[in-house]
């Protein structure tokens, strides 16, 4: 060093280490300037600056960078090439530092994640986001996929121009794998439960039909033999044949209950298809089914157009309308025949179908209760029924994603409505 200086060469500043009296090392930055007198080397002006603190900080940073448990990469924001990577980053990506420097981060990113990278790093570069925090996949040279959590921030010069991209990367493959296994397991369980539930539903359905079928045979026997007995003893024993007639009528009532219970379970089990349904044919079908009741009671039924189409399921809707119209015809005032108006209003993407009668009406305190299973307001003497009709309407509305309700006052008639999505 000193020989060179003597020959007149100007040296760049170098860092020189000294030992203090107490034995500790001190790093200095030496800048020297030779002094010549009459062309002869006369000495040098040496300046030593204590840089121990800086050396220490650098060393600490190097240790931190190199031994950190997270992967670190410094990336050129323009070319996307790696400038410097630490040991952990090399382990995660499966390449050594020499290989990585010179590659761009796209080169080691899973092909399916590259488009997302373009998007997020574009935003970071343009300053639309302050940092990128995401989960993505790298592809190792051996073809294995590694999932990482990546946080990237941008160092900018005073004018805001991107200078350096700093990425911190954590290997989350194990977590991802556990998550995927958990999801697969969850999916498997859902599939299995659904299958079990379908199976149970089918069993329930077949159970209902079997019960209905098997209950009807003895019911028919009771009914039939009571009838034969009436024929045989007839007018000789008016009281006995009166009792037998009650037995006979009870069996028809029990049969109606079974039928309505079946209808109720059917509403529950029918698949809901969300088709476009025209209301007119639904109403016409209900009126056809009620033809006998309508004729016998001299009912006046007025259907008012327009009736907008709704989203629903044909047979569920038919059951609902049938029960509403049947009630409207049934619960008329004793002194006048039933008068039923059927009309619809629409707005806000919904259609509300009204079935309005001028019958006996319902006290407000019962407006909720009547929609429950087996709830009846009237004795079967005055108005026969099973108490299932409005329960079917309510369940049907629920299944079609709609609502139903009633406006009514005693003596002023009732207006039942079904609210459905407009087609």
């Amino acid at each position: 060093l000193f020989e060179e200086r003597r020959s007149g060469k100007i040296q760049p500043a170098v860092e020189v280490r000294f030992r203090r009296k107490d034995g500790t090392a001190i790093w200095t930055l030496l800048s020297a300037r030779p002094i010549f007198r009459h062309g002869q080397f006369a000495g040098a002006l040496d300046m030593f600056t204590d840089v121990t603190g800086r050396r220490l900080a650098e060393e600490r940073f190097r240790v931190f960078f190199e031994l950190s448990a997270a992967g670190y990469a410094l990336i050129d924001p323009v070319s996307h090439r790696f400038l410097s990577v630490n040991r952990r980053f090399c382990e995660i990506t499966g390449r050594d530092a020499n290989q990585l420097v010179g590659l761009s981060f796209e080169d080691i990113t899973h092909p399916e994640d590259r488009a997302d990278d373009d998007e997020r790093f574009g935003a970071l570069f343009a300053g639309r986001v302050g940092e990128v925090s995401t989960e993505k996949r790298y592809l190792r040279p051996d073809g294995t996929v590694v999932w990482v959590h990546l946080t990237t921030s941008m160092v900018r010069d005073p004018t805001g121009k991107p200078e350096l991209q700093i990425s911190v990367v954590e290997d989350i493959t194990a977590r991802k794998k556990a998550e995927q296994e958990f999801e697969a397991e969850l999916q498997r369980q859902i599939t299995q439960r659904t299958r079990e539930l379908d199976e149970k539903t089918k069993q329930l359905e077949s159970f209902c039909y079997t019960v209905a079928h098997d209950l009807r045979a003895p019911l028919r026997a009771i009914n039939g033999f009571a009838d034969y007995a009436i024929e045989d003893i007839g007018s000789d024993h008016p009281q006995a044949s009166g009792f037998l007639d009650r037995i006979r009528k009870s069996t028809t009532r029990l049969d109606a209950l079974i039928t309505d219970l079946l209808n109720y379970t059917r509403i529950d089990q029918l698949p809901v298809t969300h088709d476009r349904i025209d209301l007119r044919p639904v109403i016409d079908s209900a009126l056809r089914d009620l033809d006998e009741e309508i004729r016998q009671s001299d009912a006046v039924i007025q259907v008012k157009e327009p009736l907008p189409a709704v989203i629903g399921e044909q047979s569920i809707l038919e059951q609902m309308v049938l029960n509403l119209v049947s009630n409207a015809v049934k619960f008329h005032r004793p002194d006048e025949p039933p008068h039923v108006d059927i009309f619809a209003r629409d707005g806000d993407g919904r259609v509300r179908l009204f079935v309005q009668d001028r019958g006996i009406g319902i006290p407000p305190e019962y407006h909720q209760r009547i929609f429950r299973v087996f709830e009846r307001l009237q004795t079967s003497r005055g108005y026969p029924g099973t108490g299932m009709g409005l329960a079917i309407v309510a369940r049907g509305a629920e299944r079609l994603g709609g609502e139903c309700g009633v406006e009514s006052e005693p003596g002023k008639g009732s207006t039942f409505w079904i609210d459905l999505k407009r087609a």
Partner: protein
Amino acid sequence: MKKPHETILLVEDDENDALFIRRAFTKAGITNPVRWVDNGERAVAYLKGEGEYANREQNPFPRVVITDLKMPQMGGIQLLRWIADNPSCRVVPTIVFTSSTAQSDVNEAFQHGAGAYIVKPVDIRELERVAKIIADYWRLSLLPDLPS
């Protein structure tokens, strides 16, 4: 049932129902003999004229088969299938007469060649009314020749 001697084959496992149906037919004015068997196998034996039904004089080939669906061993659907598969029997009109209102049963019955599907009413007077309608319908209908 234009001809009063032509036989009706009734396939019904419930003895009471068989009684009611026969009585309902009588009340409806049907004088044809009704032969009653209580399951599908016996119905097949009857149609084939086998075993206890070998004597065709006593067990004539039926003009119409009225069958229940749910019966022990061979049920109504299998019986319908068997009839459809046998060219000599295929001409016999079939009526399903059952308590079942399940749409799946209705579909299956017609898929296997049922000529009609009538639900048995619980009320006996209603049953008599239905029996009369069935009788009237078959009185109106023209029917194919029976296998000799």
